[in-house]
């Protein structure tokens, strides 16, 4: 079972005691299989550190992270990542970027092309198959990054503020696209954002994180029925949940500002 469990995790940066920064403090978080989990919090609260732990790009100072029964110690293709800055390979076409993970595994050419094409189509970039990343807009680049992560069929999809750099119109289009794909693929998702609307619109559960050191200060179960479209963002249920998160975050943002 592909359940993600951050078990009482603490992350500190810096070696000398005096200038050590505690990014995460005793964080305990279970993300059940196929759940769309969102962590929302002020910038610099350590939410990306939590994601890096699951990705295996960083190790916990204390505690451990597991996927099913396996302890996560390094990155692996069962945990796909969609970074904020897209990180596409500029020397590869859209199609080849999406095929990249399959090429690493020496998947036969025909199958590689077929699977990658499926996801290129799914994110609506059929016409841009042969384009290079430099020819694409931000939203299109992020579509490629999503298709690239999905093509290797990961159990968990890790998304680090993936739409943070996009303009608000493009962002809402991307959110709808992501939900549509997620309805079909049903992955376990850990999504990081500082945008409360985005968190509530996308997530089954929204974890509200405190300013550094990051702890979960509220767990919000979003009962809004799926499939969702953008009209839910004005429903009373949505607005109530938003108020609740805003009030818990408000104090945290003040704290975060005081630290910098």
């Amino acid at each position, binding site marked *: 079972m592909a359940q993600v469990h951050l078990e009482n995790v603490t992350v500190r940066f810096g070696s000398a005691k005096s200038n050590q920064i505690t990014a995460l403090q005793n964080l305990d978080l279970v993300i059940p299989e196929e759940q769309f989990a969102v962590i929302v919090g002020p910038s610099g609260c350590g939410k990306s550190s939590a994601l890096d732990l699951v990705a295996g790009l960083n190790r916990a100072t204390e505690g451990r992270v597991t996927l099913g029964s396996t302890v996560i110690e390094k*990155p692996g*293709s069962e945990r*796909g990542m969609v*970074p904020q800055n897209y*990180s596409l390979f500029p*020397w*590869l076409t859209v199609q080849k970027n999406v095929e990249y993970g399959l090429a*690493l595994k020496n998947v036969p050419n025909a199958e590689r092309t077929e699977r990658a094409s499926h996801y290129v189509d799914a994110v609506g970039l059929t016409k841009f198959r042969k*384009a*290079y990343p430099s020819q694409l807009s931000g939203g299109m680049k992020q579509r490629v990054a999503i298709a690239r992560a999905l093509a290797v069929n990961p159990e968990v999809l890790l998304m680090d503020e993936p739409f943070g750099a996009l303009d608000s119109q493009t962002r809402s289009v991307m959110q709808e696209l992501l939900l549509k794909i997620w309805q079909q693929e049903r992955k376990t998702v850990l999504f990081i954002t500082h945008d409360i609307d985005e968190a509530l619109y996308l997530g089954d559960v929204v974890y509200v994180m405190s300013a550094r050191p990051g702890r979960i200060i509220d767990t919000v179960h979003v009962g809004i029925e799926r499939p969702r479209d953008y009209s839910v963002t004005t429903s009373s249920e949505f607005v109530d949940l938003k108020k609740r998160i805003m009030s818990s975050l408000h104090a945290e943002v003040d704290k975060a500002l005081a630290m910098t």
Partner: protein
Amino acid sequence: MATLSFMDRYLTPKLAIPKKVEMGAGIVVAGSILALWMLVSYTGYASKDFLPSPTDVWTSFNDKASDGSLRKHIGVSLTEIYLGFFLSSIIAVPIGIFMGGFKIVQSALEPLVNFMRYLPVTSMIPLLILWIGIGLEEKIAVIFLGTFFQQIVMVSDVARGVQADLFNVSYTLGATRGQIVTRVLVPATLSGVMDTLRVTMGWAWTFLVVAELVASNAGLGYMILQSMRGLDPAGIFVGIFVIGFLGLITDLAFKWVKRMILPWENVGK
């Protein structure tokens, strides 16, 4: 629209100027220099032994071209420079990539490389002549020593500049350490490596000509030196122009190769 003054139009930083003016400016500068040269040489203001006229240079070029000596000297110089440059590049580029990609390689090599690259290769020419003579091998050695350490440093800077995010995302897609090198580090440095090669090729020409001027029995530098001994400034001009022309062709070739092997660099521009 209000008319812009000359100051507004041409002396505002970064402001675009009309296409005609853009092209004209280059022609005017180059043309003026040529005109000045013609003026002082054809009028006899400068003596023939001091400054040859364009006609003198052209005649000298034709003489050297028809008796086959120019082709021989060009052949010798090109052989020397391409062999020296090729040998240097084929070793320096991988070392530079590893130095930029792996901290341990950087720590091991950086002190030595930084010491070596500040030693002017020209100061080593006498030693190289004592050790290996004045033939092809010595010229190759000069070009190699002159470009090798510079290339290592420049390529390692390029490799160090590769975004860590590209490595991270590759790991999450299942890349092994080896694949990170072959599928991320190397392709990500290609463009910068091509630029490094293009720049260091220019320096290689300088080292070559200096080496040939010091001691040689063939090559364009040798031809220039012989012209000086024969009090033939026109011959010197021929040598200089030919080197400039070959450099220009090499540079265009680099640009062309870069376009061929890095198609993603030229899209959408």
